[in-house]
């Protein structure tokens, strides 16, 4: 039993953004509304004494439906030195995410039902965020034979992706979009043409020329986005474009949506927060794939999010060990550790600076992902599971290796102070994170 009072509730799924109270009973949201009296609470929750109800004062804070992140690398099994399901889900709830989609590029890759069930089982053991496995599209990520999509779906997979690698064969992509119709699940496409990307380590442009680093042209992404939306259009398949980073990709997606193609897309906040000008030769935490792009791309991505061309935010949380990242730039792996810093960064850099309001953030990071991937959550509607985040816009923290729940520390925010953090997170009505009790 839980009574969160006097809090600014933000629920775009019902068009709510107002101060009020929320009640939880048996792991589900029981009622939301303006201020409740004790009598109301006792009646709704069906208890005799108010001390049977946990009360949380929410003045000055926000309450959202738990955030849903559709792009997370948890690294287990096989690369537990970078992250495991326990540390990754602890990081998730600390960052305000109650549900996450776990990518399949583990060792071995998640291409069998047993593997999907293993991931779910480990997540249940950890008992923090809900974890929905994304299964591979092709066996062993080899880009050739399709996985047993129906069996994998029955095992709990909610989408298919060879993310980490782009599917180079257009025919393989066509067949996967066709066959996935049997499951109703989207194919998540990591759009990268390996020939164009070559041995590049950052975005091709003035910054790469200045640093003498091999560049990846923007077209390495956008030609694949064009290919995949065209194939989705032709087949009637369902595609989700991961980590859109170029303005050309945004144009293509806008045109595809006008044509009624069943496509959705995500942007990683680091592409809204940084550009290739921020890349430093001696700091590989800015090395990410797709690489940080230019100012114009950044503006196009924001515009795409605001006008509905792009449907959601997603972290692409990609933990790597300190040893792997502490090398000369070109020798380090791609990826940014994001779950625990990303909401604060978005709050500070986008919301406080007036680029995006908080209602839109919740729409993009909770409502839309739930809808596209057919997940519970993404709403404060009575009767739905109480996956909730209490967000304190004034909470400040310096990001340190010690403070992170993630095993990795490859974040550009290391050593920096951020403002605006989740202070309590509930999954199914159970409190899984409380910053006051850390």
């Amino acid at each position, binding site marked *: 039993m839980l009574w969160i009072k006097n809090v600014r509730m933000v629920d775009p799924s019902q068009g709510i953004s107002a101060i009020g109270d929320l009640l939880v009973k048996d792991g589900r949201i029981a009622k939301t509304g303006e201020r409740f009296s004790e009598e109301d609470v006792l009646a709704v929750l069906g208890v005799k004494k108010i001390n049977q109800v946990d009360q949380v004062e929410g003045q000055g804070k926000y309450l959202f439906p738990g955030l849903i992140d559709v792009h997370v690398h948890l690294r287990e099994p096989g690369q537990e030195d970078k992250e495991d399901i326990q540390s990754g889900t602890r990081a998730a709830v600390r960052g305000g995410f109650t549900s996450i989609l776990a990518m399949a590029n583990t060792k071995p890759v998640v291409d069998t039902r047993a593997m999907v069930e293993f991931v779910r089982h480990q997540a249940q053991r950890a008992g923090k965020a809900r974890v929905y496995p994304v299964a591979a599209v092709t066996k062993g990520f080899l880009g050739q034979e399709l996985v047993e999509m129906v069996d994998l779906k029955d095992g709990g997979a909610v989408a298919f992706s060879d993310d980490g690698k782009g599917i180079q064969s257009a025919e393989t992509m066509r067949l996967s979009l066709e066959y996935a119709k049997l499951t109703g699940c989207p194919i998540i496409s990591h759009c990268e043409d390996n020939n164009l990307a070559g041995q590049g380590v950052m975005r*091709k*442009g*003035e910054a*790469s*020329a*200045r*640093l*003498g*680093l*091999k*560049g990846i042209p923007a077209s390495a992404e956008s030609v694949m986005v064009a290919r995949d939306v065209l194939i989705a259009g032709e087949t009637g398949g369902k595609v989700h474009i991961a980590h859109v980073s170029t303005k050309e990709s945004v144009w293509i997606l806008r045109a595809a949506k006008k044509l009624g193609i069943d496509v959705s897309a995500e942007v990683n906040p680091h592409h809204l927060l940084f550009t290739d000008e921020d890349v430093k*030769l*001696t700091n590989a935490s800015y090395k990410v794939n797709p690489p940080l792009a230019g100012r114009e791309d950044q503006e196009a991505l924001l515009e795409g999010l605001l006008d509905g061309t792009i449907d959601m935010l997603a972290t692409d949380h990609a933990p790597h060990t300190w*040893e792997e990242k*502490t*090398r*000369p*730039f*070109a*020798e380090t792996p791609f990826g940014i550790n994001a779950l625990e810093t990303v909401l604060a960064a978005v709050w500070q850099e986008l919301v406080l600076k007036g680029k995006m309001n908080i209602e839109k953030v919740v729409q993009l990071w909770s409502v839309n992902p739930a809808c596209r991937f057919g997940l519970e959550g993404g709403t404060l509607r009575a009767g739905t599971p109480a996956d909730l985040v209490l967000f304190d816009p004034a909470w400040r923290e310096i990001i340190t290796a010690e403070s992170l729940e993630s095993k990795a520390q490859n974040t550009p925010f290391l050593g920096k102070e951020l403002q605006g953090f989740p202070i309590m997170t509930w999954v199914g009505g159970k409190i899984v994170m409380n910053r006051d009790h850390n």
Partner: protein
Amino acid sequence: MQWMHKDLLDIDNLTAQEIEHILQTAVPMKEVLARPIKKLPTLRGKSIALMFYESSTRTRTSFETAAKILGADITNFSVAQSSVSKGESLLDTAKTLQAMNIDLVVIRHTSSGAPEFLAEWLTAGVINGGDGQHAHPTQALLDYFTIKDHLGGFKGKKILIIGDVLHSRVARSNALGLKKLGAEVTFIGPPTLLSPEMKYLGVKISYDLDKELPGADAVMALRLQLERQQSGLVPSIREYNRLYGLTRERIEKTGKPTIVMHPGPMNRGVEIASDLADSVQSVIEEQVTNGVAVRMALIYLMIGGGTANVVD
């Protein structure tokens, strides 16, 4: 002038005044090189580590010679023999160097930024002996020395850098300093080897060598790696030579006693004709000598006390 830099990683960290200071310091060094007994006691007791992760006999020998003449002790970490080839990380190598109290490290590496990386971890000075496609500041300095020696200065001089600019740390570092010193720099090559992004350097970009030659005071041919043909960047060596190969006839189009430069090693008959390379206009061998003088000057400034008043 007191030398203020712990490291030399690229030319962009230097002011025009500092570049001139290095060049001035190199003048007496070059005189030492011309003597029958080439030995100075200046750096006795100082230790220099040469770490070449990418083979280059020419640059390594130049640094080694410079350090020896100055009397420093040299430790060669050649990649084949050391723990480097056993997978030791650059970080651990840096820690080892730190523990050995080395005074100066010269590093050459295939990864851009490896010298910066080392410099962050070491209290010793670091000289970049060439990293990836990023920078090759000592090559640039020896080129400036050579240009100044022959042309008297830099202001308004027209300098052409020709060939595989895309992959060239020499072109990048050269342009950075030449612009600061007041020269006009033009990069010339086929579009596949010369991306428009290079304009950030404030240089002119051109695909047409013959059009740019008139009035050129110095032309610098870059080495064309022969594997560029296999990668599809140039259709053939034949066509490359036709468009960008320097020959005696071609160089006459400058209408000036233009100097001909090359950072070496040359592909004779590809980017430069043999007879031109061996002609009086060619300063390619001098570049090698000047390389030792400039590296002596630099090492001296960095760990030898830091004034230009070299005496014997």
